[in-house]
């Protein structure tokens, strides 16, 4: 399996001026596997995703990211859902054009969108339930729709590895359920998923493993091994944690 491994981190640290640093992470993702990054605010959850993407520099350790083809950028087939607040929502662009961005790297600098590109965009809009809004200006969509639009962009990449920064934020219950189904589908098609979330219940539904962080790695492994009272107390220092059989409540993180 190691040869097919999508992501492998060996005692990796990421750091960059303004962003919270994250250190000593050892974890991996295989095809069809989903990993949730859990930790308090500012614990380096987003840093982890940006580090994998190469946006935040790796300062120690060794990271291997699955490369689709020789000569292509390593992130050519990584889909990334950024947090909404990184986006210029005043931008004059339609939803469909945003989703098409997910195809840019496949198209290269000059080729016009082909039938396969348009199909991938249509599919991504369908899956995220946004087909009817395809021609709307992106900035006029609701917060939840914008987030699903950006997810559609990540899906249009037809990624092998999907990185999602707080994908459940700004989603109402039906859309949360729909996203969970979408992610399960992707997993069964061999896509690896790495997501950050505050919601342990959602993590439990979608993910196989948990990476618990608090500026540094607290624990990594299968859900039930990682989600122990001791680990959670270590990660959420100063925050009251209750572990009630399968339900874990973390007060102050009601996203």
């Amino acid at each position, binding site marked *: 399996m190691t040869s097919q491994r999508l992501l492998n981190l060996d005692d990796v640290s990421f750091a960059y001026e303004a962003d919270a640093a994250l250190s000593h992470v050892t974890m991996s993702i295989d095809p069809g596997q989903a990993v949730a990054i859990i930790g308090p605010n500012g614990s380096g959850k987003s840093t982890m995703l940006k580090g994998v993407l190469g946006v935040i520099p790796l300062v120690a350790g060794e990271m291997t990211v699955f490369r689709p083809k020789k000569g292509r950028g390593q992130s*050519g087939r990584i889909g*990334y859902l950024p947090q909404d607040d990184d*986006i210029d929502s005043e931008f004059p*662009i339609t939803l469909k054009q945003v989703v098409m961005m997910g195809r840019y790297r496949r198209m290269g600098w000059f080729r016009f969108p082909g039938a396969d590109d348009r199909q991938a965009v249509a599919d991504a809009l369908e899956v995220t339930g946004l087909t009817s809004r395809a021609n709307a*200006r992106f900035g006029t969509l609701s917060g939840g729709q914008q987030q699903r639009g950006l997810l559609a962009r990540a899906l249009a990449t037809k990624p092998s590895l999907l990185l999602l920064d707080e994908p459940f934020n700004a989603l109402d219950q039906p859309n949360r359920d729909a996203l969970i189904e979408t992610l399960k589908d992707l997993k069964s098609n061999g896509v690896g998923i790495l997501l950050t979330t505050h919601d342990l219940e959602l993590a439990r539904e979608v993910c196989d493993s948990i990476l618990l962080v608090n500026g540094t790695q607290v624990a990594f492994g299968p859900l039930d091994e990682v989600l122990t009272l001791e680990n959670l107390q270590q990660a959420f220092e100063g925050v009251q944690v209750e572990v009630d059989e399968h339900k874990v409540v973390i007060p102050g993180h009601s996203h």
Partner: protein
Amino acid sequence: MSFFEILGQAFTLPFMWRAAAVLAGLTLAAGLIGVFVNLRGLEFLSDGLTHAVFPGVAAGFMFAGTSGVLYGAIIAAALATVFLTLVSHRKVTSDAAIAIMLTAMFSIGVIIVSRSHNVSASLEQLLFGHLFTVSPTEVVITLIVCAVAFALILATLRGQIFSSFDVRGAQAAGYRPLALALVLNIAIACVVVAASIAVGNLLVLAVIIVPGAIARMWTRGLGGLFVGAVIFAFVAATIGLLASFTISVGADVSVPGGATVAMVFVIGYLISLAVRAIVPDRSVRGEA
């Protein structure tokens, strides 16, 4: 002479065609690049560039006369572009850095110009352009510089769009934002240099900023944005050129071409703003 006779006469004059050629190249490049200036909020950086180019223009003029203006401008623009790109990439206090550079460079330019014997005439030409007296050589160089700017943006179009929309996402997709920003700033500098001849150093900004700002008011998606900006720039420049000529000839009041063109751009912006305030914005709903 009637209005139309004067207008007809305009097309028989070689200098009018030279002016038209310069403006055509300029508006095509400025329309495209202005969209990105608008999208990325680079108005102040563009302003910084125009002022930074001024000492180059002045030095070029002093050493080699009118023909030296372009070369001086190109050298100054290249230096300023690299400096501004690096400074603005660091984000922190980039406005202050731009403002300091802007004033420093402009004072250097004024000092250089004041050393020249024919101070007022040269200064006026440098600041406000000489649209009706561009030489054939200047036409060619202007068109080449505009073509370079246009090609730079066209070649990096997808990356420019992506990193304007969300820079992190673009970086994640494998684009290099710093390289893209440098290419964009070089293109802006090219337009500034090219426009210095036609509309002058001080009026360049109107040509760069107005088309993108207007197009943004009216479009929902990317396609209309680029096409709209280029078409507006071209039409406004043509109107400005012909208005300046007909007023100068018909009313016998000498009106400078560059300033008239810039004025038409600004009037176009004001009209667009007023109409936008009255007409409900259907584009935002997008139920097409």
